[in-house]
Structures are given as C-alpha cells and as structure tokens.
C-alpha cells in the first residue's frame, strides 16, 4: 500500500503554498550539452571576470585539505576583526553570512512578523521581495522613478507596520545610485522609525565623489544596516560570503536570528585575503569594466538598441524581441545573459561586462539573435 501522504494543505502555511521555489540555472556542462554549444560565457550573475584578488588566491591555495574536517570559526572572528580595522567600527557591529543573501533573511526574520511589511522597489534585486514572501511578510514595491529609487514615494509607502526599507545602492539592474546628500536626507526623514538597509553589493565598482559609503553613516544613524558582499568585486561568489554592518545594539539583535557556522573556513580566509589587497585588484577591475562598458554602449548605439547603464559591472539592453527568446538564442551561441522579465523589465536583458574580446563576440551573437 502507498504510504500516507502528509496533509500538506494543513501543514504548510498559506504564504508558503502561494510562492514558487526559485529554480537556479543548471550547471554549465548540462547547459552546454542541452544547447549544443562547446563554450559558455557566463554574463548573467555580475561576477568579476578577472577572478579573485591575488591574496585571496593565495589563501585558497594555502588551505590544506585536512582542514575540511574541522568546523569553521562559528562567527568569522578574524574577518570581523579585520573589517573592524578597515571600517573603524567595533568587530561586533559586523555579522558575516553565507553571502549577502543570507543576511537579507536575518534582517527580515529579526524585525518582521505576520502583518508587517517591508518596502523596496519593483525593479531591483529580487531577494528582498522573495525573503519577505517566504516569511509571510508583505513586500511593498514602490516603482522606480527615472530608473532610480524614489525617495518621496518610499516615504509615502511607510505605515505603522513597515519594519524594513531596502535600498539597493547602486541599484541592480539600473546602476543608479543615491548621493550621500540624498541618502542622508532620506535617513533623516525616516527618523529612526524603521530599519533602513542599504545594499552595497556593487559599492567597490563605484568611482563617484558623491557616492556615499554607508559604513561612514552608521554611527550617525543607528537604524542603518549596510550590506556588502565578496561575490562581486572580490570574485569569491562560489565561496558564498557577505556581511552586514550596523550599530552594535542593532547587530546584537540581528545576531539572534543568524545561522552560526554557515560561513566556511575557506571563504573566511579568502575574504581576509581580499581585504589585504593593495588596491590593484579594484583598479584593474574598474578599468576593465570602464573599457567594456564604453565599447558595449557604442556598439548598442550603432545597433539602435536602447540601454540603461550606470554604476556596476553590468548593462541593461532593451531588445526588439522577447528577452526569454533571445536568452535561448544567445545560449545556443555560448553566451548566458540575465533575462529581465523577472525584474519587471520585459524585453530587456542584463549583461555582465567581460573583457573586450568576449564583448566583441557577444555583440556579434546579439546582433544575429535579434534579427
């Protein structure tokens, strides 16, 4: 006899029943075989094509396999102390997670319960909205204005149940950012009543004098939480490591929901290596991004394709055809981009910038994919 099935309709909360699991893409070897392509360039996740900084590479090489048997340090002690030196905040105001993605869930779990809401925008990184969804919390999506977070409308969306406001600075995928003056003015208007998260996943790519280092505002605004990641500029995406920083009292509370031991030893040591870089890694990466962005934009102009580009190692392109169709055509030619229908930009793709030879191949493939 078939075993009795658990009564899922009563066991599973309604807000979980309502949502769909995130389906990640298949591994490269599987995709290559399905799309009959011998090579595949990943241009979908905004990784750093240069790879990790030299010192991170050394840290990874120095990891002896026997150490895999030993648990990592449970709260990334050394890394937090190093961050403390770099940013001049106490080590206890940092909380390290298995990628910035994990710290997003820490924040929502800490502050939100059923009936509460978070505020973000409709066209940004999806995980704020998802994490709210599977926590049974409403995500209020304030439309972007001129491709940027709309300060006024976000303030207007706040109500008595608003707990957290997520600002992606610079925004993925539009590349817009709030200047220091604008961020300060927003924080003053929120006046400490809600938690304001500033996600700075792409901060290291920004080279603009008025771009605010959220880290410098933490002492002034005790409701501010800053996210950073080692996945983007520092090229450690595979190791999954990111962190949040905030006023120590706030971080003490968030720590209650934090999953200890979720950050592995290799990741902690590679991240320490990244922080030891002398700045040459960031310079090289920025130079590559600048040159490739310039090249891509001029090619797009020649093809009469509208684009959205700002800060960050990515460009959004508007297509005259369905983005999900172009995705498949580009895959068959060995280029994997991010479709933007899921970011509420139908018929757009987002492309991670690679070095010039790859970009040249990509432009050619794009041209034939929209024909």
């Amino acid at each position, binding site marked *: 006899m*078939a075993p009795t099935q658990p009564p899922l309709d009563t066991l599973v909360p309604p807000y979980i029943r309502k949502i769909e699991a995130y389906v990640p893409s298949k591994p490269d070897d*599987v995709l290559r075989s399905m799309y009959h392509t011998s090579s595949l360039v990943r241009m979908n996740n905004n990784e750093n094509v240069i790879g990790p900084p030299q010192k991170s590479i050394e840290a990874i090489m120095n990891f002896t396999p026997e150490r895999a048997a030993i648990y990592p340090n449970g709260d990334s002690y050394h890394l937090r102390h190093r961050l403390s030196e770099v940013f001049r905040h106490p080590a206890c105001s940092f909380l390290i997670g298995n990628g910035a993605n994990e710290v997003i869930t820490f924040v929502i779990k800490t502050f939100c319960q059923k009936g509460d809401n978070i505020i973000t925008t409709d066209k940004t990184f999806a995980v704020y909205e998802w994490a709210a969804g599977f926590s049974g919390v409403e995500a209020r999506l304030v439309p972007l204005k001129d491709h940027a977070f709309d300060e006024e409308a976000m303030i207007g969306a706040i109500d008595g149940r608003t707990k957290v406001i997520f600002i992606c600075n610079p925004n993925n995928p539009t590349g817009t950012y709030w200047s220091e003056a604008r961020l300060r003015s927003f924080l003053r208007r929120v006046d400490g009543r809600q938690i304001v998260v500033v996600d700075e996943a792409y901060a290291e790519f920004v080279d603009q004098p008025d771009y605010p280092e959220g880290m410098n505002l933490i002492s002034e605004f005790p409701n501010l939480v800053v996210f950073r990641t080692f996945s983007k500029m520092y090229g450690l995406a595979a190791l999954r490591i990111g962190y949040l920083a905030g006023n120590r009292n706030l971080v003490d509370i968030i720590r209650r929901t934090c999953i200890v031991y979720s950050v592995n030893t290799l990741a902690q040591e590679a991240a320490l290596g990244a922080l030891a870089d002398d700045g040459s890694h960031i310079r090289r990466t920025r130079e590559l991004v600048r040159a490739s962005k310039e090249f891509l934009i001029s090619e797009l102009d020649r093809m009469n394709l509208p684009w959205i580009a700002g800060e960050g190692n990515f460009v959004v392109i508007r297509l005259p055809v*369905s983005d999900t*169709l172009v995705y*498949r055509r580009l895959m*068959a030619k060995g280029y994997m981009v991010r479709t933007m*229908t*899921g970011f*509420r930009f139908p018929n757009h793709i987002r492309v991670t910038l690679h070095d010039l030879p790859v970009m040249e191949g990509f432009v050619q493939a794009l041209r034939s994919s929209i024909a």
Partner: protein
Amino acid sequence: MNTADTAELIVGIDLRYLPVVTGMVEQSAITFGLTKEGAQNLCLAVEELLNVLAAAPGAGEKIRVTVRDGGYYTEACCYFPPHRIPVSALNVTKVQNPYDESVIENLGIVLAARVVDSLRLVREQDGLMSICFTMDKIYPEQILPVQVLPPGPYAPGPYGQEDIKQFAQRVQQAYPSVIPEFFRFPGKVADMVRSREFGIQLATDGKGNIGGGMLWRQGEKMIDSLGPYVFVPQPGLAEAIIQKVLENVSRKGAVCMVNRLPVPDVPKAFFEELAPPQVEDNGLLCERPLYRQLDEDTGSTVYVHPNLEPFVRQCIDRLVLPRNIVVTTYAGEFIEPHAAFGVQVARKRHLAILSTIVAGRDAAHILAQYVSSLDDDGITRIRFKLDLGDESEQVLVPALRSAGFSPCYLLPWGGTGDIVVFEHRQRQGS
C-alpha cells in the same frame, strides 16, 4: 480557495446519502447565486456520478463533495478513491437514449457534462480522483451604443468596475469575430476579475474613457492572455499595455504566457509563434497560439515516441529549446490493460481537451469512443495534450494517430514538461 465561499460535505459512498448530497449541492448553489434551474443541473451531474460510484464494490469509503462560489460560476467537486470508479466508466460509453433515466447507471460520467457548462476530471496529487462540474451564472447581455473615443492620450493605469464593463463592451465592438463569448456580458467580465482568477490591465485617459486593455487568467504555471485590445489609433499603446501586464505577472510563479486568440494588434515583439509554419497534415486546422516565456529556460528532458520524434525535433530546433530528447522504445514491458483519460469540456465553446490519467493498451479504442461520444454531444473541437515530461504517456502516440489526432504544436512547459497539443482531424470545420 476562500473557505467562506465553500460548502463541504463528507459522506459514505452509498445511495442512501443521495438526498443529503443533492440537497446540499442544490441549496449551496442557490446560496452562491445560481438560478434554481442552474442549481438543479449541477445536482443532476453530481447525482449521476454518485450512481456510478455507488454501483462499484467497496465498503466504508467516503466521498467529499464541495460546492464553491467562483464569483461568476458555481462549481461542485467530488473527491473519491480512484478504484471506486471502474475504468470503463471513466470513459465514455455510448448509449442510445441519454435521457432515459433507467440507463443512467450505465453511462460514463462524461455524459454528466451534458447538463453542465463545464466538466473537469483529474487525478489529484494525493491520489484521489476528482470530478468538478461548473455552472456559469447568468448575466444580461449588454452592447454599448457606438461612441467615438476622444483622442487621448491613453496610458495603463488604475481602473474601477465601470471601466471593466466599458472595456468588455468596447472589445465586442472593436473585435466582434475573434473574442470569447463572455465579452458580451460585461457584468460577468467584472466578476471574473473580482474572483481573482483573472487579471486585467486597462489603458485610460483619466476621464473615464477606456482606450484598450488586456485580460488574463492566472494559472499556477501558465497565464492565458487575451489582447491587448486597442480601441484608438495611438501608436505604442498595445506595447505599453502588454509591458505593464508582464510587469504585473512576473515573479508570481508562472513560467509562460499564452495567447490562444491573437488579434492583429498583438505586438509580435513580445511573443513567439508556437505552431510551425506548416504542420504535417495538410488541411489540419490547428490553433496558432502566441507564446511568451517568463523565465529563463533551464532545460529539461523530453520523452518522445519514435513516431512523433521528427515533429518534436522540428519544434525544439525552431524554438531553440534546451532539451534532452529521449526516444522511447517499446520492448514488450508491462502496459496497463485499460487506459483512462482526463477531460475538460467547455460546452459553450464546443471544445473538449483530453489528457492522460492512465496510458493503457486499449487507448485507441477508448479514444475512438470519446471522439464519437463527444461528437454526438455537439463538441466540434477535440484536443489532446500529451505530456512529454512523462515517459509512460509516450506509448499513446500510435493510438492517438489511429484515433485521428495529429500534432499541432509543442507548448514548452505546458505540463510537467513540454506538451504536444494534438487536434482531432475529423472534427475540423464541422
């Protein structure tokens, strides 16, 4: 499902309970807004089903009957163990006189569809069988006197109930030949949206005029869309509407959007054509739906009978789909003796859609029975959805061919995997 809008009853499968069940179904249906006659039709269908179930051996088993207010329709569903229903009864049995009550017990339950607006027979995830009958509520037909719209500009924006009704009326006027019948009943369209089964996006001028819009049914995996319909010559309006709709439906779990009744105004840039330019049988009248994927295609395995392989390969190549194609070969292994098919009948559209519950050896025979019985019932279009994600279904291909079905198009992610939609050839043009 909002439990406040549902009545539920669990009783033993026994004719002693017949009055209890029919009483509950009728009273609930009236409470939910059906006319007495509509409620009685729903009862009749449930009664026929109970007759079949009670005739089967088995003691102590129960049937769960629910009646639900769907907003613009009322639905009665029956859930019961699959073995209660003999496989032969799951399928159609032809009878001489369907109105002779004495032979009702011998009828296939599909005949219950004769009295209701639609019927759906499926195997639920928990292994139970369910049959749902629906009756649509009755709405007055309303046709708007022709009025010229001011030039606008129109833009996608918020709307109210009156706007929805105006939209329905303008759709009738602008597209009289290619739209579903419900647009003739503006109140019904308003209730369809209110039920949340349908989404709508209208373009307004902010002064109470509707310049266009789009309506869609939000399924779990698939969105069935209609439009964009535009009533003014404003360049870019159709694009603006579809763009807004796609923003609305993204991140809600659906993987694709289909438009089965495309009008000339559909901006082609947002869609792909599913049907190959020419299908294999000359003269086969296939629907030609437009399709849009909402997610990146992460690839899947499809199982395909050798007989269908050229068609499937052609579709996959044309649509550039990442697929592992596994050609199934029959090597004498066990096949269930009896086939059973799920069916959805939409009476007003004269349409039936069949799908597989059990792939069995007598499939060709059962399919032929379905076809002739549905034909007798005035159903002129019969489709079959073959799920390429399920390897066991592929043995049905020869039976489908011999029963007169031909493949029309491949719908990516239309089932557990891709599906191939077949159309019955004999029914064409009748």
